[in-house]
């Protein structure tokens, strides 16, 4: 297995902290699948209201790291996470913290659109109802409408809220999933290759949406598409073989990569 252990994270972050507060941070995060170490000590700060993109070749650990941020790795029996991950300075792996509450704060959008096989309305209403965020039907209607509006889906579905969410097109389904995540008012939204199953037009709509959302949310997005990373993100983190190779402003990464591996990857020499 890979024995390289490189971490550039810390050095780069200090400069950026001047602008935004640190929303989430990771210190020496390692993930094991059984005996296999998939992530080798990641250090990273994610700043408030910025979009950070994770790029890297397949199997580099970018999705694994993303899933550490809302403890989705807990659902994999063999997965084990060490190190420190904090949200607003609080350890999210602390025993006293309820994972349900964490996931209400750190929402997630998955690679494949996965609306519930229920109506569009029920898809959005599920989260607020689950967490008791609304007291009556009117509040719920409001939350559903505003979430759908923010996801840019309202005009397309307002007349058929009772239609099944699975009947929408792929791009609409993914925006429905984003609206569903927004409906519980999270602070951070994690997106795991949200456009990989979508056509170019749907992709560009989602990208515009991400741009609009970053004013209110902190967004971490995993992507295979380097143009997408360049278009939507403020920061880009390049992962390779379970290491965070480079983390910098997106412009810097794409124009002036510090590490030869980053350069090789973004110029298409591997990956």
């Amino acid at each position, binding site marked *: 297995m890979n024995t390289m252990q490189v971490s550039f994270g810390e050095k780069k972050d200090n400069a950026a902290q001047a602008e935004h507060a640190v929303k989430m941070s990771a210190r020496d995060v390692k993930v094991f699948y059984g005996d296999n170490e998939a992530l080798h000590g990641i250090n990273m700060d994610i700043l408030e209201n910025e979009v950070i993109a994770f790029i890297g070749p397949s199997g580099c650990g970018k999705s694994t790291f993303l899933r550490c941020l809302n403890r989705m790795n807990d659902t994999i029996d063999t997965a084990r996470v060490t190190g420190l991950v904090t949200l607003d300075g609080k350890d999210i792996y602390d025993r006293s913290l309820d994972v349900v509450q964490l*996931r209400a704060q750190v929402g997630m959008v998955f690679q494949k659109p*996965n609306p*519930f096989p229920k109506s569009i309305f029920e898809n959005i209403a599920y989260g607020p109802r689950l967490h008791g965020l609304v007291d009556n039907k009117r509040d719920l209607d409001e939350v559903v409408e505003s979430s759908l509006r923010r996801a840019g889906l309202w005009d397309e579905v307002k007349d058929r809220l009772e239609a099944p969410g699975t009947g929408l097109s792929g791009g609409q389904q993914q925006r429905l999933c984003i609206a569903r995540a927004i409906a519980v008012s999270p602070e951070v939204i994690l997106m795991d290759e949200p456009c990989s199953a979508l056509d170019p037009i749907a992709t560009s709509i989602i990208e515009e949406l991400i741009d609009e959302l970053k004013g209110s949310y902190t967004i971490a997005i995993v992507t295979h598409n380097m143009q997408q990373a360049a278009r939507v993100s403020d920061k880009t983190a390049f992962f390779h073989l379970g290491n965070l190779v480079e983390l910098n402003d997106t412009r810097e990464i794409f124009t002036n990569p510090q590490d030869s591996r980053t350069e090789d990857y973004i110029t298409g020499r591997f990956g």
Partner: protein
Amino acid sequence: MTPSDSEQTKTQQPDLMDLAQKRDLMQQRVAASLKRRHASEKRFRLYGMAAVTVALSFVAILFITILSKGLPAFWQATLTLDVYFDPEIIEIDEKPVRQPGESDGAFQQRMLAWQTDLGFVNFNRIILNSLAEVLPEAPRYQRDAMRLVTSGERFGLRQLVEDNPAIVGQTLRLKLLADANVDVWLKGNIDRSLPDSQQQLSARTRAWADELAERGIIRNQFSTALFMNADSRSSLASAGLAGAFMGSLMMMLIVMFLAVPVGVASAIYLEEFAPKNRLTDLIEVNINNLAAVPSIVFGLLGASVFILWFKLPLSAPIVGGLVLSLMTLPTVIIATRSTLKAIPPSIRQAALGIGASKVQSVFHHVLPLAIPGILTGSILGVAQALGEAAPLLLIGMSSFVASVPGSPFDQSTALPVQIYLWQGNELRNFFEARTSAAIIVLLALMISLNALAIWLRRHFETRW
């Protein structure tokens, strides 16, 4: 053109030729192999069609034989007679009526005494008198005459009087079931040319049966005896399935309310919540093994645990239900688990990602999607239990039970066991049809259960 150039073209030209030739050759080979492939495809299709045809024809043969044998049993030789409830024969007091201030015990005692009196009444005499109306010779050959009517009918008459004593002194036109042997004789299920010594009925009874049939007094009529009565050995013509049906129904209810919830709950736990370790692996292997255990072994288990240890009654539906539940559990667990496995993980992730707890994600999202599969698996499990006879033999349910069970603790038998019992009855000529009729009832139940399973699956199916 330089020499080198011309050389090049020379060497190229044959190459091109070569390539064209090669391609031709390849095309020929492909064409040749194509022929072979098409032939094998055709052959395979023919095999498939032949297999389906053979299977279908066997099913058709099965259904045709069972229906052609069994359906006639629903119509039985029946005598239509004017029955005079002669007050001289039925010498009983007025039916006791509860006096004001009378205690429960006292009233019941008087009632019992009255019923005992009624029990002493010779209802055979009444039947004989009615027969005498149509067959003047009947009183002289009492034995031969009484063989015409099945012996259970006198209890039917007694019941009529007990229910409504006012009919004493009246004449009622009643339908009385003919004896099983009369039915056999009239339906031609016995060789009419056999000598007297080999006939079940005397020559006189046979002649009378023919005569009454000709006069329209004995007719082949639809009989509810098969559905309303319990099994009988003294009055074969009125032997019915009611007891076995009730027994089977009770056992099915027990299986439904025991095996299905327990099985579904264990499957949900094992699939969704249990940690994956050696212990759960061992449990899984054991469940799969249990599903393959011959059902008769579960009967042995039931006999030793429920009857010998828990002291539950022999031949009781409660024990049968417990045994069948044990047998059905692995089926339900396996069906439920495979259904749960088939639910896409994206649904679980979506629920968890939004902050649902594990239990919420399972009960709000996974389970509703799994319901059609769970229902189908459970119903098929129950249907399998319904058709099972082997384990019931070992817990005493193969005994002859002449009453309809009122509770799961009463003695009873079950439909498949009843089929087995009737199949072994000595009066083959009569019971062959009755056995097939019982099979028809069982098959009808099975088919309706399976249809229900299909309907439920269609009804609850959700796409994702």
